[in-house]
């Protein structure tokens, strides 16, 4: 009934989904880690990226341009959001931050619905990535492999930014102790703006890359947001490696469970989250210090 090739192809599907979740979650987690704000509009930003990419493709017919412009557009939106809204909430409570970003998410979704309607839209798979590729023992859709490659590249760039640049050092120091960073004479608020933008872009980028696989609707961000939360709870809040590990675990759980019965995939994800909460309350790679 369940053949080996079926199983392996589901595992690879899990990697594809996991990579996407890892990228989206790392955006959310560096924003929370640095700014201390849980962004409930993150799913909406993922969706926004998808629409920006799709819109660009409609006008340019270029896959490459749609990814670049889509991601840059969400970066810009992220920076604007931080400047006109989020920065006024740094001194407010966690709950108020959650409420305002929750409202923002709804507003973004409804604006998109107003402009583009509720019907699903899609970008065709670029001609160079169409068809299937032989992995030696089985065939697999080429574009999905491309997705893994692109997302891995994006995660690697994020890693480079975080671990190999001055900005990244400030961000990581800010995750440990933002007050201290402030006292060292670094303008943390400038850094906050950039981090929010980059975090948003991570979601937006994932959004564009995903459109040829899964067509977008204005509501596509909601499920993603829920899955991202689970990823972060499993991986540990504020931890970049945790987001990647959590993303891959979540991707595999969703894919492998849905091979047996798709209805239980979300339930299984929740079961694993519960196990993690009971055995490692701060997530697999999280530490007690944060929160």
């Amino acid at each position, binding site marked *: 009934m369940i053949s080996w090739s079926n199983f392996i192809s589901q595992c690879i599907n899990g990697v594809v989904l996991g990579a996407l979740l890892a990228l989206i979650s790392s955006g959310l987690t560096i924003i929370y880690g640095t700014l201390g704000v849980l962004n409930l509009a993150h799913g909406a930003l993922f969706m926004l990226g998808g629409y920006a990419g799709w819109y660009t493709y409609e006008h340019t017919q270029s896959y490459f341009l749609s990814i670049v412009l889509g991601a840059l557009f969400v970066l810009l939106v992220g920076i604007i959001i931080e400047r006109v809204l989020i920065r006024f909430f740094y001194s407010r409570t966690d*709950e108020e931050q959650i409420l305002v970003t*929750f409202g923002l998410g709804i507003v973004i979704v409804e604006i998109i619905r107003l402009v583009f309607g509720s019907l699903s839209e899609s970008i065709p798979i670029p001609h160079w990535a169409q068809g299937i590729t032989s992995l030696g023992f089985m065939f697999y859709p080429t574009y999905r492999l491309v997705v893994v490659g692109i997302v891995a590249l994006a995660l690697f760039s994020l890693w480079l930014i975080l671990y190999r640049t001055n900005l990244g050092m400030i961000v990581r120091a800010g995750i440990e102790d933002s007050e201290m960073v402030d006292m060292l004479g670094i303008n943390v608020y400038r850094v906050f703006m950039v981090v929010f933008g980059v975090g948003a872009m991570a979601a937006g980028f994932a959004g564009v890359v995903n459109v040829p696989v899964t067509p977008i609707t204005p509501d596509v961000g909601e499920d993603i947001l829920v899955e991202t939360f689970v990823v972060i709870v499993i991986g540990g809040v504020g931890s970049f490696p945790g987001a990647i590990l959590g993303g891959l675990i979540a991707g595999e759980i969703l894919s492998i469970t849905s091979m047996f019965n798709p209805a*239980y995939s979300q339930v299984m994800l929740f079961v694993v989250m519960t196990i993690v909460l009971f055995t490692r309350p701060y997530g697999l790679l999280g530490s007690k210090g944060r929160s």
Partner: protein
Amino acid sequence: MAYLDQKVVLNMSRLEKSIIKRLLPDLWVLISLVLAPVILPHLGFSQDVMNRILVYGLLGIGFDLLFGYTGLLSFGQAAFFGTGGFVTAYLLTNSFTSSIALALIAGVVVSAIVGFLVGLVALRRTGIYFAMITVAIGEVFYFLENSPLANYTGGENGLPGVPSPNFSIGNFVFQANQGWNMYIFLAICFLIGIVIARRIIHSPVGHILVAIRDNPLRAAAVGHRIQSYKQLIFVIAACYAGFAGGLLGILQGYMPPDAFSFDTSGQLVMQTVIGGVGTLLGPMVGASIWLYLRDFFQSTLGLGASWKLALGLVFMLLVIFLRKGVIGGFVDLNHLLHHKRKKHLESDPNPDTEVTLESLVSEIKPSKIHDINDIVLEVKGLSKRYGGLLANSDINFSVHRGELRGIIGPNGAGKSTFFKMLTCEVHPTSGSIKFEGRDITGFSVTDVCQLGLTKSYQVNQLFNQLTVTENVLIAVLAKEQGSFKPDLFHNASHDKRLHDMVDHTLSLVHLTNRKNHPVSELAYGEKRRLEIGLALATSPSLLLLDEPLAGMSPKERVETVRLLKAIGQDRTLIVIDHDMDAIFELAEKITVLREGKILVEGTPAEIRNNAQVQEAYLGGMEE
């Protein structure tokens, strides 16, 4: 005799007045519910909309207890709304019972059980983690309803054919589908919900919940098992949701699957914020505004499907500008119009009756027991390691009953770490702590406080949003109720015995004339005294004071030293402070810590003249 009678009559009418005063808010709700069908239809509210407002209002009461009072922002209330709704609808449509009341109760019970289990998971964390976990849990229930349980719930179709309440008592026949009967049925349910919720918030539990929202660390430290209280309120909120869910099915004659959706939970959060958080009626007001604006945007303004965008913007504006929602806005406006800022009124009626040392000392029985062999606290080989840093190493320490011990030492000597281990805030790497003969190593702060060992903090840990009286009441409740008691219907605000205890503590720490002030309005020295008062109110037999004099003015220091002397009369005290004069005056015996070890122990005179101590403070950079 005539005089006495008069007095009795006076007391009676005062009692009646106070009962009426207490019931007044309930009466207002009743009057509003009666008047609503007369007024609201003229404003464009249909009967159906009004019924829905009541259902969402009822769902919201539970949510407000959870979020507004306890500070737990849940995005998963739809899970219990749906659970209660589907259990009730399933029992009624599959003719397990024809009694609507029974089906509703079953729905509430199942929701409570589910709420208890979910609470075990979700309440393991707080803040953003809690919010994220509840989002995930809500989603899981949606999936469960949709596929694995579709045989029972009808999956995407929901459960049609839920009967509406029809019954007869004698000649009186009630049929819900006639006239305003459904509204009356729901209004009664809502009124019951409000009356119960108001009892809960005025009960000891209600006070403790607010304290948990304000400062969970201190609520636990004065001896409340906060996890149990959170679990309790989580279950109560689930009951409200389950009840409201059952009513939704009955109201519509159909149980819709989207009761379980994330949108339902989100809408509930938004309605509550719009109406006003922490008001109980806020969710109902919010639901009215929500449903009214939806119709207004959709039909009057012709916005069509973009009504949700408009409501989303309204919600954001409220979160940004009107932080207490519509009800809070009206309250503020009312204050502004009447210039009734409390500050102006509260010129103290009786200025501080200066409590002298003599009056304090005379009040406390001079029952000081000095038995060197009666050891209260015994510490053996206590060490604490933070990574590579050894904060305390191999400390042996004991205090006998009635002693007033001082602990001094240069900064970084490990004094505060030592205290934290004694109160079990942090657990030692090795060694043991015995309190009154019992090994308390590894206990929780809460349990240790219940045994009679607590401390006042170096940095104030008060309930900043509460008044001085309420602060002390929280500590008194821990003493009176033990670590957990689900005492939901006993009115703590009017319990004379509790208030006598609070007043006693307040007079000890010299804050009687500030009793009704919010903590945020107190001067620093007053906050320091309240900090001590919180610890004192739990009636500890061993009280630890971590730098009680820190940051005080010279005058305040003198007063506080007197206070410490007075409270040391009938309990054992250990005091850490940097004020040498004070410690030398207060303590009978002093322990000097240095670099995590005990340097020397002795009487003040011995310590004063000890060469090692002098070196520790003045020299000491060798190594």
